């Protein structure tokens, strides 16, 4: 498929005419949403759906924190609590983290590489809808799990679903089947979208956009897609095996018939650990775009930044068993996975240092995106260091499955990923809607959320030190855990207040926000070269690129980047 290049600068593609359209009617809006294959609309739909599920999963977390606020509390019965953390984890990983990543990739990758759409627009729509229905399917379990004739129950096996807890003997009814089939379905959608992103990047770049000039955001999305392509099928294989076990009496994980419970853990974490890096990739992607623009300097050490992302992805395929230091592997295996896990910290460290070096010597502009990225740097630093601690197997013999681990990965996923998602939303909000997000509301959002976040999760490190295990719905009042649990619960309320400011800001700015213009941040990548919001065809004239910062070249013809690269 060769790209057609339109030479005439003033040429604008005509708006496509559709039959039976009345502007503004609900039918039309619905039609647009359902029938669209436009990568920008699908991207926003991904982000919207991800935020919707985020709120649901956040509410579940709130319920759990209320239950844990006091010892011997009776707010939630144990089965509801167990369903809550299962649904919370599953939702956050599969229905929030990945869709948000895909949403940003969908919206931005074609714009950043100067393409008019994704390589396979209809496959793109397919991927979104499959994901969305897998989410609805999962939540339908609340209504329908044991059959519609009885009160429903959601899956309660944990998002990791360790066998043999998932076998028929220990998980009766159909709740586990909802979990399994939903993830199988979602896996198909994720692979479809990842494939689409990969092909788009390799086959749809505008002239001059060599791989060495891709924005780091795009590089991260390429790596993310590779990981999805390699890891998600492993999860699908796991789900097929569970289904065969549960429906046809297969013996994969039936420990009574010679099946091996630890094999499930290996298979699950071969998927699960790359998955963690899939989730953190958007954080790397967005930070690497935001920090240079708001420091007014190019990213420091582009080649090593790209190499670091690739190295992280590569090593992440060989670290899975650090989730299994306690299952009784031989000491050699334990030592191997300590080594591979610690190796990940090297490229990760490089990334943090290079971001700092990018800011060093720049002229910082404390706009919302940069503020959230600084929050990210601080929290990701802590998350990375607790990760190093957890890599040391003897320490993990104490910390594994304790609240320390809960704190660690919430620092990664909330303090790391979610902060950059906020940064990304504030950064590209003007591009998507043509309006500036409100700075003051954004600051309220930042401070409330940051404080709430630390109040919630910092004490959980110490709870882990004091021997509090994860996934318990209640605890005794004499273990020294009560005060910190209460503090942690109070933090959730502060975070929720921050989220309210965020949602209000999105709506407020959409209606009353200042007009932003096409390039409000004075940025350098191609998405800022088109209008805000971009037309359906993105670029009337496909750009030709000569360096990593095409708009810098255009704005500084006296000192273009390609002289230095």
């Amino acid at each position: 498929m060769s790209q057609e290049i339109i030479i005439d600068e003033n040429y604008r593609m005509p708006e496509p005419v559709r039959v039976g359209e009345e502007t503004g009617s609900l039918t039309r809006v619905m039609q647009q949403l359902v029938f669209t294959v436009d990568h920008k609309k699908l991207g926003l739909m991904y982000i919207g759906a991800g935020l919707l599920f985020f709120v649901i999963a956040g509410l579940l977390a709130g319920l759990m924190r209320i239950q844990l606020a006091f010892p011997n509390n009776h707010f939630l019965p144990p089965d509801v609590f167990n369903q809550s953390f299962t649904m919370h984890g599953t939702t956050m990983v599969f229905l929030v983290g990945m869709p948000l990543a895909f949403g940003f990739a969908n919206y931005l990758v074609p714009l950043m590489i100067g393409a008019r759409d994704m390589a396979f627009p209809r496959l793109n729509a397919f991927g979104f809808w499959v994901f969305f229905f897998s989410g609805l399917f999962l939540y339908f379990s609340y209504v329908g799990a044991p059959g519609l004739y009885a009160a429903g129950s959601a899956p309660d096996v944990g998002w990791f679903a360790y066998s043999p807890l998932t076998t028929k003997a220990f998980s009766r009814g159909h709740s586990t089947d909802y979990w399994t089939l939903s993830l199988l379905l979602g896996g198909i959608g994720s692979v479809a979208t990842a494939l689409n992103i990969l092909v788009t990047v390799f086959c749809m770049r505008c002239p001059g956009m060599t791989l060495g000039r891709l924005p780091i955001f795009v590089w991260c999305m390429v790596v993310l897609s590779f990981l999805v392509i390699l890891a998600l099928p492993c999860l699908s294989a796991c789900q097929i095996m569970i289904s065969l076990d549960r429906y046809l009496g297969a013996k994969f994980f039936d420990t009574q018939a010679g099946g091996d419970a630890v094999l499930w853990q290996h298979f699950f974490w071969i998927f699960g650990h790359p998955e963690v890096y899939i989730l953190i990739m958007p954080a790397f992607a967005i930070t690497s775009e935001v920090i240079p623009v708001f420091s007014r300097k190019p990213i420091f050490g582009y080649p090593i930044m790209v190499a670091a992302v690739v190295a992280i992805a590569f090593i992440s395929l060989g670290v899975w068993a650090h989730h299994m230091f306690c299952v009784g592997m031989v000491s050699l295996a334990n030592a191997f996975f300590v080594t591979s896990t610690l190796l990940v910290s090297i490229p990760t460290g490089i990334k943090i240092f290079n971001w700092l070096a990018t800011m060093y010597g720049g002229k910082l502009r404390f706009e919302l995106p940069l503020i959230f990225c600084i929050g990210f740097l601080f929290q990701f630093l802590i998350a990375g260091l607790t990760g190093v601690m957890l890599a040391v197997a003897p320490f993990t013999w104490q910390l594994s499955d304790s609240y320390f681990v809960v704190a660690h990965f919430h620092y990664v996923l909330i303090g790391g990923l979610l902060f950059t998602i906020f940064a990304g939303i504030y950064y590209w909000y003007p591009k998507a809607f043509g309006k500036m997000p409100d700075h003051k509301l954004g600051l309220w959002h930042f401070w409330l959320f940051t404080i709430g976040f630390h109040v919630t999760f910092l004490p959980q490190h110490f709870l882990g030190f004091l021997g509090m295990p994860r996934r318990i719905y209640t605890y005794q009042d004499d273990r020294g855990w009560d005060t910190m649990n209460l503090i942690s619960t109070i933090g959730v309320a502060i975070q929720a207040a921050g989220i309210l400011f965020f949602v209000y800001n999105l709506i407020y700015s959409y209606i009353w926000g200042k007009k932003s213009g096409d390039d409000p941040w004075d940025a350098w990548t191609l998405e800022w070269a088109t209008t805000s919001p971009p037309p359906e065809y993105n670029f009337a004239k496909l750009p030709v690129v000569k360096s990593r910062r095409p708009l810098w070249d255009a704005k500084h013809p006296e000192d273009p980047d390609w002289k230095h690269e």
Partner: protein
Amino acid sequence: MNYATTENPADWKLPSPRKLGILTLILAESALFTIFVVAYLFYMGKSLNGPYPHEVLEFPLLGTIALFSSSGTIFLAERCLHAGNKPGFSLWWGVTAALGVYFLYFTGAEWYHLIFEKNLTLASNTFGTTFYSLVGLHAFHVIVGVLLLLGILISALRGRLHSDHTEHVEAISYYWHFVDCIWIVVLTVVYILSVRVPQ
């Protein structure tokens, strides 16, 4: 180095999306198969009760010959298409599909034999579980491949296949070669290796 000025947008060449797409899909499928192959290897020789592989499995000679030769015929079909020889294409393409169907028949007969005469089912033991899931997953891919082959065959016979469909044809042939390669692995692991492992 100042290479930017020497670039001409007209010289800008990129790989074909369809081909790259199918290769990526093959990568994903390989990951899926890897898990099932590892499961088979892991449980090899660990079944608590019979039937065991060496008691019931026979080397699937005819099916293997059919599947491997279909890789050759699809190659010939493609060559015909590039040379513009449409009847030749239809012939070899049809032969490929027929060989695929024969392989499926062969597998079906083998399963019938195993289930009804040797009493090996998915639920018999870990061997049955891993055997049927791995071979079945492969057979499922052959079914999909045969359907794709038949789709192209029908449009070829109705005279709807044009030179701009070469990419479709190529993508399907990649997929078919991949299914063949997987069979090499399955054959080695299931029919050559596991029948030699003592229980």
